[in-house]
């Protein structure tokens, strides 16, 4: 794990999101797809205490500038994300990473599906390349609120060939996502789904995949206000292989968690809990 001050060296719009490239050599040398980077936001005199912890979109271990990392920021999530999105080239930012568990890659080629929603889909191009390099067949599905909320479609077409795109129907995004996933799982021999999204969408993915006996490796893109395991506020309820319920820290033991282990109803309800 590296604590560093990274310099932003490139930034571009990616639909409604902002794509940043940041020089952080030691971090870039070690990261794998599914791992995270955590940023202090608001500058040196910040009034925002929580960090913003994001999945790494890509790394370049040694480029012209030394190693770089890439992230995709959704500016409308909150004030801290807006600050992060508004950083300009040559601005500096405190970053810690790589954090958490990477997507486990199969030892040899399997038919796999890679699915992401909105900015959470950022690491999936990198993951798809790694899967393809291992001889996996990859079906890619990208979902978003509008076609400006889809991340990496063009790049993915280059790597994967076919990419299906899911945008909301009359009753929102989730029903369409469920239908599309179900249709694909029925029509193919897919044995693993790699998914990156917020909790409600991942919950739906896990539910749809269950009857097919398909393993889901889910990257939980939820708030991780320290990113380093210190605060305990990113806990996810899981059922262990012993059948006993416990919680694990998303930032250190996740953010990639096997979908069948998560107690989704409890987790999703607790995330948006208010006092009744």
């Amino acid at each position, binding site marked *: 794990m590296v604590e560093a001050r990274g310099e932003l060296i490139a930034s571009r719009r990616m639909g409604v999101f902002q794509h940043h490239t940041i020089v952080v050599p030691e971090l870039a040398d070690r990261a794998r797809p599914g791992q995270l980077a955590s940023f202090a936001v608001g500058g040196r005199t910040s009034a925002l205490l*929580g*960090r913003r912890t994001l999945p790494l979109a890509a790394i370049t271990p040694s480029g012209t500038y030394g190693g770089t990392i890439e992230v995709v920021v959704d500016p409308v999530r909150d004030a801290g994300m807006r600050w992060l999105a508004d950083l300009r080239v040559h601005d500096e930012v405190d970053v810690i990473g790589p954090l958490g568990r990477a997507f486990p890659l199969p030892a040899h080629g399997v038919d796999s599906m890679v699915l992401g929603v909105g900015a959470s889909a950022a690491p999936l191009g990198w993951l798809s390349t790694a899967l393809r390099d291992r001889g996996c067949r990859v079906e890619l599905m990208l979902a978003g609120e509008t076609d400006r909320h889809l991340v990496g479609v063009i790049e993915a077409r280059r790597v994967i060939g076919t990419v299906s795109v899911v945008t909301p129907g009359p009753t929102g995004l989730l029903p369409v996502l469920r239908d599309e996933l179900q249709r694909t799982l029925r029509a193919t021999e897919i044995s693993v789904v790699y998914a990156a999204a917020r909790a409600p969408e991942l919950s739906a993915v896990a539910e749809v995949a269950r009857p097919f006996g398909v393993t889901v490796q889910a990257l939980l893109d939820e708030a991780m206000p320290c990113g380093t395991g210190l605060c305990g506020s990113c806990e996810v309820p899981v059922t262990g292989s012993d059948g006993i319920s416990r919680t694990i820290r998303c930032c250190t033991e996740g953010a990639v968690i096997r979908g069948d282990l998560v107690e989704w109803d409890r987790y999703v309800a607790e995330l948006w*809990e208010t006092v009744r």
Partner: protein
Amino acid sequence: MTAESVSADIDLTVNAGGLALQTPVMGASGCCGFGHELLRLGRAGDVSALVTPSLTARTQSSDHRGVLLEVPSGLVSPTDRPSLGTGQLEATRLPWDADGIPPVIVSLAGNLSGAYAEAADQLRRQSLMRRVAGVEVNLACGDRKNDDRPFAHDVFGATKVIARVREQLPRDLPLFAKLSADVHDLVEIARGCVKSGATGLVVSSPLRALSIDLPTLRPRLTPAVTGLSGPAILPITLRAVWELRAAVLSGRLPNVAVVAVGGIARASDAVQALAAGASAVQVGSVMLHDPSSAERVTTGLLAECERLGIPSVKDLIGRAHHD
């Protein structure tokens, strides 16, 4: 830059409630983990003592996850967090024997004075007890026998808890009572705790607070167990430390060490807390924002002593009370 490289001549050691510390900068309960986390960051040596998250007699899940809500310069969070039972400590294989782990202070919590006593009793029986340099009693928990009012808000409740925990622990083990600044008569509560065996006082727990969820217009967290921490509360911490120190000076409170916690984020905050009368400080929320904070505060303290021409950080303690 390490703390040593600023100046080797300045003495940073302090004694807080019978606990000898290499520097006055400790890690606050619940914000610095159990040791693994700081070790992984290479920052276990940044704090002179590590206060664990509060442990209870039995492992408790909570009604809430430990959500953190951001407010300007602060965090609003539940004070009844899930906790590990003191009987389960061994099973988690804590790294308290590892190189670089500072003295460990175990924080205890409960909802009845008997539950605190049970937690302390189980702790004493643990083989890990040999690595425990002190105990801090988190009095912010609600008292089941007193309409869930926090023990820290009631002199009778607080005194009883401290007395019962004291009975369970070796006589020479430093025992800290963690108080709330958000009370009518802090000195009276502090006096009760010292009389029943606390060797040090820690102020403050998170202050009672509230957050309203916007779409539903309902409280986001249970009001009785919602607290505010972070730089926003620093002036209140300073006032509480000042009040306790003034009470010692006036004879209203026996001579007792005070540890400041609440909003300490930079060296100038720590200097203020020491001047107000604290023997040491704890860094909490700011460690979540920036895990290098403890090191920065320590390095800054050295620089500050050098600037003020003070050979020992002890000379800062209580300076604001001098004419």
